[in-house]
């Protein structure tokens, strides 16, 4: 661990994150504000269409905040995986000419997504205050839930970025998977809207669905349908965590094996 967080590595990570941030909104007038505006604008659209027009989630208290939290967490997952996916290839110039620990590239691109998430969390807090959401004691679980999402996204990033070096199709495939994932995860509709209990269970096997529901339950309203209720406390509710841990181990091994040949394959 000490070896991984040596002075050189820390400096490198902080410089890469800094560069990422400076370059991301290069030449845009609003700059960093876009990292907040993007999820907010998506929220406004979804809110108008689903809440105002289709009257979705009328029976869930604080539904706008509920919706926004889902969007922010999903957006974090999406941003982190898509950014990491191209990060190895994107830094090909560097990798071909200098020896740096390659995990640093993935890690630093994940950190800039984390920073965005934290900024977005501030927006959520503002919304919670405006919406007069009562502060729940269970909110202390939120960091743990976000950590789970982070680890899940990181594991996938390791796989995706290494595969992308060899197969550029991965980029397009992942785009479709994310699109499908957005609708298969109860982000813009409450899970209770799905009539079949079996379907609810299947949906909640997805770590993202489980995490988003848990996050809503712990911070916004206990009316949220979560794994614990759906599986009635059975062992199935641990499947998402098992998926995350397995992916992490697999991702680390795969990345380590492939990273030896990044320089020549890019």
């Amino acid at each position, binding site marked *: 661990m000490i070896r991984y967080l040596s002075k050189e590595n820390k*400096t490198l990570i902080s410089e890469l994150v800094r560069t990422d941030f400076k370059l991301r909104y290069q030449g845009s007038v609003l700059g960093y504000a876009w990292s907040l505006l993007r999820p907010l604008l998506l929220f406004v659209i979804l809110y108008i269409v689903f809440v105002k027009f289709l009257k979705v989630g009328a029976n869930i208290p604080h539904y706008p905040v509920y919706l926004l939290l889902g969007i922010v967490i999903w957006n974090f997952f999406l941003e982190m995986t898509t950014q990491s996916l191209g990060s190895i290839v994107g830094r090909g110039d560097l990798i*071909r000419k200098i020896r740096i620990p390659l995990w640093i590239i993935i890690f630093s691109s994940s950190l800039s997504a984390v920073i965005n998430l934290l900024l977005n969390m501030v927006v959520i807090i503002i919304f919670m205050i405006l919406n007069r959401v009562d502060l729940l004691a269970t909110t202390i679980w939120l960091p743990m839930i976000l950590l789970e999402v982070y680890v899940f996204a990181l594991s996938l990033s390791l796989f995706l970025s290494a595969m992308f070096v060899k197969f550029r199709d991965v980029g397009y495939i992942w785009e479709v998977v994310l699109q499908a994932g957005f609708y298969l995860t109860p982000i813009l509709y409450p899970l209770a809207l799905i009539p079949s209990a079996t379907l609810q269970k299947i949906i909640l096997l997805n770590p993202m669905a489980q995490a988003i529901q848990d996050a809503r339950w712990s911070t916004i309203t206990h009316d949220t349908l979560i794994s614990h209720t759906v599986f009635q406390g059975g062992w199935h509710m641990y499947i998402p965590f098992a998926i995350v841990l397995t992916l992490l181990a697999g991702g680390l091994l795969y990345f380590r094996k492939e990273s030896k040949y990044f320089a020549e394959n890019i």
Partner: protein
Amino acid sequence: MIDNIAIKVEGVNKSFKLPHEKVNSIKSAVINFYKRKRSFEKQEVLKDISFEIKKGEFFGIVGRNGSGKSTLLKLLAGIYTPDSGQIHVNGKLTPFIELGVGFSPELSGRDNVFLNGALLGFSRKEMEKMYDEIVEFAELERFMDQKLKNYSSGMQVRLAFSIAIRANTGILILDEVLAVGDASFQQKCYDYFNELRKQRKTVVLVSHDMSAVSRFCDRALYLANGREEYIGPTREVADMYLEANYNTPINGGQNEVAVKPRATIKKVDFVKTKLDIGEKLRARISFENPTALPIHFGLQLFGRDGSYCFGSNTHINGLQPTSKKKGTLEFVATVKLVPGVYFVTVATMDEFATKDLDYRTNVGQIVVNKTTEVGGIAYLDHSWKLL
């Protein structure tokens, strides 16, 4: 590993798979899988390379384009992984293969300094201390807040170089850095190399430019087609390298042929190519001069680093231009040059010996046998006497 060895390379092999059609889509991967056809060829880039670099040594790696020298360098730097064999590095190594790696055109010069410094392993604090010196050395004080994309290439190189020389590790790896920049910048490079030599740093310099390698390296490795052709003192390597690379026939690709030569050189024969100091060099130049206009002849000798050693022509020597349509001319000279390899250039010239008609570089090489250790270009008859 023994303490005085900086880098030890043992039996390293490296090959690349060169796909006939690059498989970077899953579709083609599936198709190829079903066809059971491996549509790539294996190109062996390095074959059984072994050598040692001592601490404090200035070590050169030379070879023509495609000889595998850059691959070897990347293996040393840990960018590539060898197929087999081992590379031991004793100490910290600065992995700079090229100047300005990681430079981002959209960032300001200032930001790039810090980013580049981080790649070299310097913290922000350390960089802040060095910042002013770096900028001053690069002579870019006025430009640091501009984006790098607005820099000229010379400015970028100067900035990159100023940061790179801050690297303070035990082992430095340099690739072709000499190829860039103007004369004054090259002088800065040379000064830096000399400084490194004085500090007894371990340096690995890769170049196809033999003169740079000759100038700085104690020992060198000559790579040809991925094999070690020779390892030894730089001087010996330089002779071998140039002998191998300038051994081109008279009508070979390297010879420059003037447009529509009026008088062409057909052949140049040497009676003897290995000479002792003071021996006679005899070159027989066969020519054709179909238009029968009066022409002169010239001959020049160049050293292995491209230095111009000698040149004369028939006009200088007071000969009348010849109008013969075909013939052979003999050039005779007493060679008073220091031991080494020399390259011969001959030319036909117009009747006033002001314009070259057919200028042929490297039509042959002569070797002055190593009978003495004297240095320089010209061999002066000399003696010492204590008074």
